[in-house]
Every structure is written in structure tokens, then in C-alpha cells.
């Protein structure tokens, strides 16, 4: 089969690989119909995630058709069209039994601090991902869901991570009616987080970024006020002035490890790998939220420590909430919101690349060329 393969930092190619096989009785093999590149894939692409091995196939956002099932699979049949959460999870460990699907303890032998994720290095379990024609899906009776007839494929693929993560971020913020919510980052996760903040009763939603096309999307898709941090000497001061010097009730950090805004921090994290991620956005969140407020973190960071201003978080009495998204837990309600037009994830899709152009797709997304907000990948077998 054809599959994207990692060849080292900033280098990818499409190779012929063996089709994955059933390795556990509850495995399924899914023929991928549509995949996406996630912003967090760029951390792998840039060589920031430890134990990213040459030959690894990325991709944790994908939908497809069940091509083969293991002997114990009861809930799926060959031919079913399924959407697959980015989390690999068993459904029965201490954490899964309590709804923490992203923290499953039975699927990642390489680390205990993070669960299993498709195509996201061996630090998250060593599973090849869905930017390929076929992918192995463990625990087929637990993770995948049949795609509803009415759902658009592009909404379905975005629900496997980006959209679900945005919605989850707003929930982590514990938004109350009338709250002022600041969303840092107008990428796919931030856009849905901003839409979701309204659903939870926000009185104001302010989105901060520095890319004009993304800020425009935040205004049109998420009905948010926007601030371009490049236009201000100090975005934290501007946010304080915008909120009568109180600070935001809730800040949702939807940027993660490669935050711009400080060249020094970016070089230390993204280029020299001396930190698990550039903490610029996280520190802005801590500074811009009001005392006693909540910071919700859904940006992705590596496992190495980062220079976070923890003292300010303590002194301000903040609530810090974060996790990888337990995707499947979000779906029933999100399906309603999408059907009702309250959430519109596919509005953010800007580019569609064939799998054979994967190198260009990553470069365009990484450098944000051509106004790229969300690129999708079309495997040649689809």
C-alpha cells in the first residue's frame, strides 16, 4: 500500500509499505477514505517529539471503510464506514472505565503519561497512522463509530480530533453565562473552541492570532472579536485593557508547542529542542486570565519540561485544566450541534492534497502558505 513515511525532521515521502494485518482479535483494518494533517503532526514533522522513528506513518485524523476484522469484533462489519477517534483505548482499564479515554493504560507500552495515538511516534505507542491507504485500528469494538448517513465526510474527519478538541477545550474552561473568553490561536482547534464557547454561554469571545486569514475566519465562522498580537507591543496589556483590567474569566490555549510571539522561545523549543514546547501562549494565558480564573490547555506539548510561569499561576489562584481530548465522549452531543448548524467544522478546510503530494502538503501547512488553515489528505485508494 502507499503510505506517508517520515524520513527525518522536515522530510517526508510516500513509500510502498506492507498492508497492516490483524495483530489482536479485536483489531480491524480500515481502508482510509479521507485523512487530515493536524497542527500537532507538525511537531513530529519538525522533529520535536522524542522517539519518532524513520519510516513512521503519521496521521491521527482519518475516516474509512472497514476492510477486515479480528475474531472477537462484535460491533463492526466489513464494509462499515467509520470515523476513528485519534485516541487508541481499551475501554476497560481504570481510566477508560471513568471516561478518560485519552489516558488509557492498556495501549501504550512506551509511556505511562500519555495514552495511545495513531501515527504519533513511539512515545504514544508506536502505531502507524492514517495518512496511508490502510491502517490498523486496535479495539475496534471500542473506538470507531459508524458515520451517520447525514454527516459530511469532512465534518466526520474533523470530529476525530480538531473539532472535538476545540469543543473539549471550551468545556475545560468551565464557562459560565456571561464570561469573557479569550481563545489563543485561530487554528482549527481555536476556531471550534470559539464557536463552542458561545454554546456554553460566553458573553464575549476574543480570539488572538497573528495570521490575517485565520483572524478573518474567527470573525466569520466563530462570530468572535479578534486581536492581531503583531499589532500590539504587549498583547497581555491589551487584553487587560479590553477587560477593564480584570483579565478574562477563561483563557483557552489552543496553540501548543510551536507558539510564535517570542523568537527566543521558538528557537529554544522548535529548533534546538531544549524545551518540550515554546511556552509563549501558555504564559500569555496565565498572564491574561483574571485572578481566580481558569486556563484551559488543549495545545499539544512534548514530554520535556517547558519554562512555564508557574509562580504567577499560583499567585493568581488559577485553575489550570488540560488533557488530550477523550474524543468519543464528545461525539453524541457534537453530532447534535453539527446537525443543528451550531458547529460548522468543515468551514475551516482550505486545502485538499492527494497522498502523493504529502511533502508539499506538510510544507504548505507548516509555513502557513497560501492561507492554509486545515489541509485534508486523499489517499489514492479512496
Amino acid at each position, binding site marked *: 500500500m502507499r503510505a506517508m513515511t517520515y524520513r527525518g525532521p522536515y522530510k517526508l515521502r510516500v513509500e510502498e509499505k506492507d498492508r497492516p494485518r490483524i495483530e489482536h482479535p479485536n483489531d480491524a483494518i480500515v481502508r482510509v477514505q479521507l485523512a487530515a494533517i493536524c497542527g500537532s503532526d507538525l511537531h513530529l514533522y519538525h522533529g520535536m517529539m522524542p522517539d519518532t522513528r524513520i519510516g513512521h506513518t503519521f496521521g491521527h485524523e482519518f475516516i474509512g471503510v472497514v476492510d477486515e476484522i479480528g475474531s472477537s469484533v462484535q460491533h463492526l462489519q466489513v464494509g462499515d464506514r467509520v470515523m476513528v477517534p485519534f485516541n487508541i483505548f*481499551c475501554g476497560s482499564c481504570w481510566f477508560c472505565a471513568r471516561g478518560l479515554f485519552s489516558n488509557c493504560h492498556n495501549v501504550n507500552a512506551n509511556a505511562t503519561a500519555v495514552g495511545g495515538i495513531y501515527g504519533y511516534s513511539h512515545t504514544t505507542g508506536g502505531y502507524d497512522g492514517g495518512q496511508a491507504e490502510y491502517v490498523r485500528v486496535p479495539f475496534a469494538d471500542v473506538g470507531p463509530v459508524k458515520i451517520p448517513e447525514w454527516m459530511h465526510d469532512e465534518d466526520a474527519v474533523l470530529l476525530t480530533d480538531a473539532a472535538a478538541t476545540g469543543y473539549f477545550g471550551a468545556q475545560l474552561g468551565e464557562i459560565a453565562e456571561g464570561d469573557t473568553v479569550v481563545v489563543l490561536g485561530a487554528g482549527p482547534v481555536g476556531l471550534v473552541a470559539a464557536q463552542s464557547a458561545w454554546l456554553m454561554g460566553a458573553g464575549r469571545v476574543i480570539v488572538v492570532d497573528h495570521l490575517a486569514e485565520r483572524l478573518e475566519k474567527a470573525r466569520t465562522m466563530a462570530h468572535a472579536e479578534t486581536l492581531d498580537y503583531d499589532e500590539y507591543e504587549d498583547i497581555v496589556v491589551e487584553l487587560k485593557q479590553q477587560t477593564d483590567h480584570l483579565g478574562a474569566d477563561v483563557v483557552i490555549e489552543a496553540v501548543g508547542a510551536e507558539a510564535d510571539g517570542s523568537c527566543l522561545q521558538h528557537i529554544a523549543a522548535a529548533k534546538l529542542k531544549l524545551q518540550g514546547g515554546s511556552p509563549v501562549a501558555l504564559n500569555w494565558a496565565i498572564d491574561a486570565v483574571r485572578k481566580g480564573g481558569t486556563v484551559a490547555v488543549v495545545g499539544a506539548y512534548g514530554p520535556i519540561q517547558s519554562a512555564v510561569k508557574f509562580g504567577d499561576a499560583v499567585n493568581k489562584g488559577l485553575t489550570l485544566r488540560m488533557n488530550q481530548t477523550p474524543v468519543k465522549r464528545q461525539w453524541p452531543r457534537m453530532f447534535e450541534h453539527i446537525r443543528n448548524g451550531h458547529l460548522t467544522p468543515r468551514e475551516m478546510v482550505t486545502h485538499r492534497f492527494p497522498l502523493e503530494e504529502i511533502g508539499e502538503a506538510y510544507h504548505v501547512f507548516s509555513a502557513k502558505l497560501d492561507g492554509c488553515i486545515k489541509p485534508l489528505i486523499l489517499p489514492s485508494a479512496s
Partner: protein
Amino acid sequence: MSQPTTRDRDTSSADGLPIAYVPDRPRMRETPEQLRARIPGWGADLDPADRPSHPKLQYSPDSTGAHWRFPERQAGAEGRERSIEHAFVTPVFGTAQPLHGVSGMIRRLAYRRYSEARFGHWLLLIFGDRVDAWGSHLRSFATLHPDNPITQTGIRSELSASGTMRRGRSDRRHHLLDPVIVAGPWVIAAGGLVLGVRRFRRRAAG
């Protein structure tokens, strides 16, 4: 609907003081009715107790689809690397790219020697990544499908779509560094090769 990019800076307190310095509650700039009319779905998830991720721990082991208490163990766990914070290799695990060669030895050392709490664990894994990359690059030149930095970096997309492709670049602050990071090792390798050939020729001539 066109939305404001910044708000007008009024103060919410009656006496003109910024709200942070007085005990008043902030006023909503728009009423719920106004927001409901302007924002699709405003307030649909207003009740925190009715949101999907509330409460954080929602004990419901019978609703996950799992029909086992502990999953059947996948074959092939013997010798597979694992975090020493785990009691055993997990019952299901990834089998992509098993450890091999020098990079595999480095990575195995990281897993055997250090827990996830130790910086050395991650530094060794990153070092293993770079050794893996360099070894793979070198090995690729002995194949019919050698690494090609032009196609593999997607750099050709810089030239396509002419001017529109230049719009909205995010890497302008650090783009001078990127060629050093990407092309630097290739240039150093080429320089080393040239020096090596020159030295060989001198020795052969002398």
C-alpha cells in the same frame, strides 16, 4: 455578519472606574436574547452539569463497548521496549518500526535505564532519533530510492501559485534558521566528503 475586530473601551462601573478596582459584577455587553439572536446555538450547553465531559471521572465501564475485564494479550511482547513505569508490556501495543541498529541500542538504553521522569530518558530518545535519521539517509544512498531533500521537504510549493503563496507566512521570524537546520547537515556532509577526497588524492599523489 461583520464583527468588530476590537471593542470600544467603555467601563462597566457606574462611577467610571475600571471594573477590577470596584466590587461590581461586570455587566454583559449583550443580553442573552441578543446573543441568542446573533450566535447560532448560543447557550445550548449552558448547564455545566449537562456537558459531555462533566464530571471529569464518569464511572461507566459497561458503556464503552469493551466485552472484557482485561484485554487478551497481543502476541510478540517478549523483548519489546517499555516504560519502566509500567508493570508490563501493555496487552496491546504498536508494532511499527521495531528497534534496530545503533539507534535501537540508544533507545533501548533510554527505556531500560530511565523513567519518564528523568531528562536523560528523553535526551537519549532524541539522540536516537537523530542517529536513526542519519543512518537511514546514508543507507538510502545504497538503494534505488535515495533521499531527495527537494521532494521530501516539499520546498517546491514555495514556487507554485506565484505571489499568493507568499501570503500569511508564519515562519518569517525564524526562516533564516530553517535552511541551516534542514540543509546544514547536508552541506557539512558534502564538505566533509570534499575534504576527504582531497586528502585521499594528496596521499595518493604523495
